């Protein structure tokens, strides 16, 4: 019974471990409902009560569209930095990366670096211009001088695709993880997540979502800091001593200290690197966060704080991964024994799979109470991330599609906000349904796909419309669409879907690289450039002429509205 519980964890965590998609454990099903984990549930209930209280308070402050989408611009740079870090430090990065370090040492560091280096790019190219030009979504920025209908349509399409794939991966992962850690049945777990995220978003809007994010970021950073501290303390704060012990204990010995087989093919490595780096700059739920602060200065500060916290967090996960090697590998209690009842594989046989390394370490360093705390934090983490996604999805539909494309700007602010709330509720139902439908599917590739789409559709459309005078509506629309479609098609033809999901034989996938970004980004940027160049329409000329006004505002913030309503 306990064993099958950990087996399920392997499945659950491989689903949410975004980057380690390539190493996703095969789906293992089976096992009945698990015993209730009382400590974890009590701590999680405290979190739920606190966040619902915040939602109630936030609801009383959420009146205008600016309040709903952008917290009225009233979040400080530091708070927003914490919230961005919260959005970014998913359960996947915490459990997935520490699990990867546990299994193969150095290779885990490579992934965490890929996730971090997108942030300087966001800072240098995007953050200030976004804050100066937009109000609630990045589509506001891309459509600043381009025609609203096509540009908002393609932006909303890109955003909704990203949100959908991200959300499915999180819902399925959440359901399995919660089933495992809390002993709650899968369907109930999915319903609980879907309901809570809908309540946060529909009633509390961006204010509630931000504070859920901030609380979760503090809990996660606090818990991870404590674990890393205990690990380092037991080695008298000498990393060399920690590594030496890990090399002694780990079956891979000295190989865990150098790059392993993860990056064997340079094209895949670069393609994945591009997706992680530029995908970050195209994630709709992250880009929305820049409108919650008062000005460009606060936007800069929030990226700086977020980069520091996320970098610190990844260094902690590295220490935690090595700590798990030294604390767990010689303790048979954490492993599934082979048929002889004694021997076990020190990597593969970890109960629940390698992604459970951090959770077991929590037990090893802090006992069952701390294990309960880390489990509750993992639940809170998932909840905060899905709430951010739901808000981004609802905003794409109500603000970009409904208010601009369908109602052509004639919708009242009140009706737009009402529609967002209804959409958030619908997204909640859809997410629960998708979580249910995809329970048995391998959805590990979906977060990688979300990053690839963000890098190949949202990011090129945004960057080119802001930086290149020659960009026209026609170019941005068709280039963005080509990026979106090519990323989707290449992922479907890649080994993760073609072989692992559709079941075609190994080696038969038509597209052999793990991530399409290198190719789909090239397609998007080339087509935006080429089609804009060839665009001889009067509209295209007017759009090029309108660049100067956008340029002055994007560089100086002249006339930029605060997100607060006027």
């Amino acid at each position, binding site marked *: 019974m306990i064993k099958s519980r950990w087996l399920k964890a392997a499945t659950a965590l491989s689903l949410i471990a975004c980057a380690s998609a390539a190493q996703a454990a095969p789906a293992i099903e089976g096992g009945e409902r698990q015993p209730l984990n009382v400590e974890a549930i009590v701590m999680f209930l405290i979190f739920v009560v606190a966040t619902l209280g915040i939602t109630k308070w936030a609801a009383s402050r959420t009146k205008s569209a600016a309040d709903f989408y952008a917290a009225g611009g009233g979040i400080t740079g530091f708070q927003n930095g914490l919230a961005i870090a919260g959005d970014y430090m998913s359960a996947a990065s915490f459990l997935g990366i520490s699990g990867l370090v546990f299994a193969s040492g*150095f290779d885990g*560091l*490579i992934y*965490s*670096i*890929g996730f*971090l*280096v997108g*942030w*300087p*790019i966001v*800072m*240098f*190219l995007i953050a*200030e211009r976004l804050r100066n030009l937009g109000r609630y979504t990045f589509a506001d920025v891309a459509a600043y001088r381009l025609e609203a209908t096509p540009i908002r349509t393609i932006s909303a399409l890109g955003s909704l695709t990203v949100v959908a794939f991200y959300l499915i991966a999180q819902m399925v992962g959440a359901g399995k993880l919660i089933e495992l850690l809390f002993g709650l049945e899968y369907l109930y777990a999915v319903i609980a997540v879907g309901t809570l995220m809908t309540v946060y978003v529909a009633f509390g809007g961006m204010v509630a979502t931000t504070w859920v994010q901030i609380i979760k970021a503090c809990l996660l950073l606090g818990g991870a800091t404590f674990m890393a501290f205990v690990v380092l303390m037991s080695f008298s704060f000498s*990393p*060399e001593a920690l*590594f*030496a012990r890990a*090399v002694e204990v780990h079956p891979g010995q*000295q190989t865990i*200290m*150098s*790059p392993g087989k993860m*990056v*064997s*093919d*340079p094209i895949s*490595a*670069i393609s994945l*690197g591009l997706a992680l*780096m530029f995908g970050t700059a195209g994630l709709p739920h992250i880009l929305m966060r820049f409108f919650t602060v008062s000005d460009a*200065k606060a936007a*800069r*500060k929030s*990226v*700086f704080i977020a*980069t*520091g916290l996320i*970098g610190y967090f*990844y*260094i902690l996960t*590295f220490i935690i991964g090595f700590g798990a090697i030294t604390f767990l590998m010689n303790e048979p209690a954490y492993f599934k024994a082979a048929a002889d009842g004694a021997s076990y594989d020190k990597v593969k046989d970890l109960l629940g799979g390698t992604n459970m390394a951090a959770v077991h370490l929590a037990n090893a360093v802090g006992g069952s109470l701390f294990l309960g705390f880390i489990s509750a934090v993992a639940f809170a983490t998932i909840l905060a991330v899905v709430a951010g996604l739901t808000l981004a999805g609802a905003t794409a539909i109500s603000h970009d599609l409904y208010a601009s494309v369908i109602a052509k700007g004639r919708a009242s602010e009140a009706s737009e906000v009402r529609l967002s709330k209804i959409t958030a509720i619908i997204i909640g139902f859809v997410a629960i349904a998708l979580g249910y439908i995809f329970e048995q599917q391998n959805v590990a590739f979906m977060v990688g796909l979300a990053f690839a789409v963000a890098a190949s559709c949202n990011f090129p459309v945004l960057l080119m419309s802001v930086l290149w005078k020659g960009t026209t509506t026609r170019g941005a629309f068709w280039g963005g669409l080509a990026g979106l479609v090519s990323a989707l098609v290449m992922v479907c033809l890649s080994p993760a879907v073609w072989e692992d999901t559709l079941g075609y034989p190994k080696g038969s996938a038509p597209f052999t690289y793990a991530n399409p970004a290198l190719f789909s980004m090239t397609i998007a940027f080339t087509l935006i450039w080429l089609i804009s160049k060839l665009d001889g329409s009067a509209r295209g000329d007017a759009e090029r002429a309108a660049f*100067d*006004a956008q*340029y*002055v*505002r994007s*560089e*100086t*913030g*002249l*006339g930029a*509205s605060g997100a607060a309503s*006027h």
Partner: protein
Amino acid sequence: MAAANSAAIEQIKSDPDFQRLVRARTRFSTVLTVLILAIYFGFILLIAFAPQWLGQSLAGGVTTIGIPLGVGVIVAAFVLTGLYVRRANSEFDVLTQQLLERHK
């Protein structure tokens, strides 16, 4: 919302201070972007083509050259971001404020 009419836009755009500000900031952010790209993809290419080099012992112990280099990439991302914020918050913001005051 402040009305930014086309005459005001032209004025600002042709202001030498505006051009100086934008040129300096563009150069600075381009240099930093190229730096972070070079650092990151340099690291990836080292992993792809020279894993043995990264796997050498750093100081005779088990710690390899790759560990401080990897942590160094994380620190570099933070430091470069900080450098940008420092210059933007002082120099660039002051120039922008002056510019906006003058063209009010």
